[in-house]
């Protein structure tokens, strides 16, 4: 194939497909075994300094926040993160100094709530570097190539733009149509973490609602930490196998964390904690504020359940369940600051 253009972005998370197959053969168990462990153990075993990490969910939806807080608690450094609609997770990991390199599809913003003061400041002052640009579909299909064991996937986006110029993609002449076509490289993150409503002790996981990119990401990532609202009996999975969106053999750790997506939303269970997100957005306007947030919500609490007490305990969680089920109206402090 004739190469027409090459993006100048850094190629992150790519392995030769043969090398990756061999890595999987040697490192991923196909044996049904109990993978339950604590979030501290999962992070300590599977997230290393310098890793390329990816977080499941979308924006503030179904994010494995307990893992994110634990990465900060354990002080990981020089992580590269997939900015795949990474919002609160990426913002606080950059703010905490754990992530200093990002490949961006969507980052540094909180959708309707406004931009992210902490991570933007880090990029604008050079503390965090954007190593490549892509788009949401670009990332989606990088993971698709990754799960398929292919070096790349052809796509008809990114073409003609600076998003392509700063990406790790290549434009070639399509041997079938003769037209230019973009090839996005496969992506196999070192570790991904995905929060689900239920799974069994082996990691067979079900997701309620949209899958977003998690079907592909879970299979593309070399290591996968599943956090779950509930651990169910294997029989629950086997009675409705068509609901299994993540199979056990791609999973390395199963961590039981009720409300493990807080302050993000867990579809059908609880809504965004807008009060908490607003507190972060307010505090993160300064470096001192960032430190205040982490001192309060990460370093001064031993684990996630202590954190849940701190954010308002059962009363707050009850309210978030009611809002999710449209039984109470959503109130968001950040709305006051909008034009």
């Amino acid at each position, binding site marked *: 194939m004739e190469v027409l253009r090459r993006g100048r972005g850094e190629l992150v998370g790519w392995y030769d497909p043969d090398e990756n197959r061999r890595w999987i053969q040697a490192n991923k168990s196909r044996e049904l075994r109990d993978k339950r462990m604590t979030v501290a153990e999962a992070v300590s075993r599977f997230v290393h300094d310098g890793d390329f990490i990816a977080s499941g969910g*979308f*924006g*503030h*939806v179904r994010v494995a926040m307990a893992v994110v807080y634990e990465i900060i608690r354990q002080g990981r450094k020089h992580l590269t993160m997939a*900015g795949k*609609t990474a919002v609160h997770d990426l913002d606080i990991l950059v703010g905490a100094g754990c992530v200093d390199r990002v490949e*961006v*599809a*969507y*980052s*540094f913003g909180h*959708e*309707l*709530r406004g*931009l992210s003061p902490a991570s*933007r400041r880090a*990029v*604008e002052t050079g503390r965090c*570097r*954007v190593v490549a*640009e*892509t*788009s*949401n*579909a*670009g990332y*989606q*299909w990088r993971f*698709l190539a990754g799960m398929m064991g292919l070096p790349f996937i052809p*796509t*008809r*986006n*990114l*073409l*003609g*733009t*600076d*998003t392509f110029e*700063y990406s790790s993609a290549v434009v070639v002449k*399509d041997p079938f149509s003769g*037209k*230019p*076509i973009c090839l996005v490289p496969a992506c196999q993150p070192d570790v991904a973490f995905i929060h689900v409503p239920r799974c069994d002790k082996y990691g067979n996981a079900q997701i309620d*609602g*949209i*899958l*977003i*990119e998690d*079907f*592909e990401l879970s299979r593309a990532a070399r290591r996968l930490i599943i956090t779950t609202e509930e651990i169910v009996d294997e029989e629950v999975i086997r009675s409705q196998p068509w609901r299994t969106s993540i199979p056990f053999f791609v999973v390395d750790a199963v961590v039981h964390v009720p409300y493990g997506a807080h302050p993000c*939303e867990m*579809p059908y269970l609880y809504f*965004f904690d807008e009060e908490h997100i607003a507190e972060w957005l307010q505090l993160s306007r300064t470096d001192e504020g960032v430190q205040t947030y982490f001192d309060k919500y990460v370093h001064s609490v031993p684990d996630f359940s202590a954190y849940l007490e701190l954010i308002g305990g059962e009363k707050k969680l009850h309210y978030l369940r009611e809002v999710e089920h*449209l039984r109470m*109206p*959503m109130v*968001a402090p950040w*709305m006051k600051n*909008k*034009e």
Partner: protein
Amino acid sequence: MAEEATYTPTELLACVASKLLEDGKSVFVGTGLPMIAAMLAQRTHAPNLLIIFEAGGIGPIVPVLPISVGDSRTFYRAVGASSMHDVMSACQNGYVDYGFLGAAMIDQYGNINTTVIGDHDHPTARLPGSGGANDIGSFCWKTIILMRQDRRRFVKKVDFITTPGYLSGPGAREAAGLAGGTGPYRVITQLGVYGFDEATKRLKLLALHPGVTVEDVQANSGFEVLVADDLITTTPPTPEERRLLREIDPTGMAIGK
């Protein structure tokens, strides 16, 4: 400039955007104004508008304005809750008629910047990047851009092309490999509505909002805006439309208080 208006600029934008959507067609929407415009269209002239969200929600009955294009309101009583791969593929394959985008900067060919102000590696201001914008602008048949207009936003050359418009002019999209027949369709700002000239693919003023003049438009643009021969004035929101907007966004999250 305008006589005492009984509606806000945001309400006007939402109503004008909503009228562009057709019944029985499909639209990819982002949160905020695009979502409001699509919900309003469903409640007025386009009850069978198929709303699709990039994270996987297909055909929801949206109960209240979602905060995120992935939150559970985007697949509330939907016909489908699938994945980004599924809906982006449908879009790439030609199933999506309209796409809505916001922009920090736009040039005369409809190229959009939402990535960075200044130099990419040493930015003056870092913005969120493409998200689904490049995909929507590449795949949807017709892209509608909603944005605020001033000389810093309507610019000769954008600092960074996040999302393709007509690139350098006629034929450039196809030459780059983008799907034929796609591209920016309308740009809606607080001053008026723009289309793109058939021959040159340059931005062309089609309609002014009540009380706005061509001079106001030119004064708020860093390049020469073409003006349609049959320039019209947009219809302001009716009381009924304004009532529906309050119903859709009761907290004023996107439409304002």
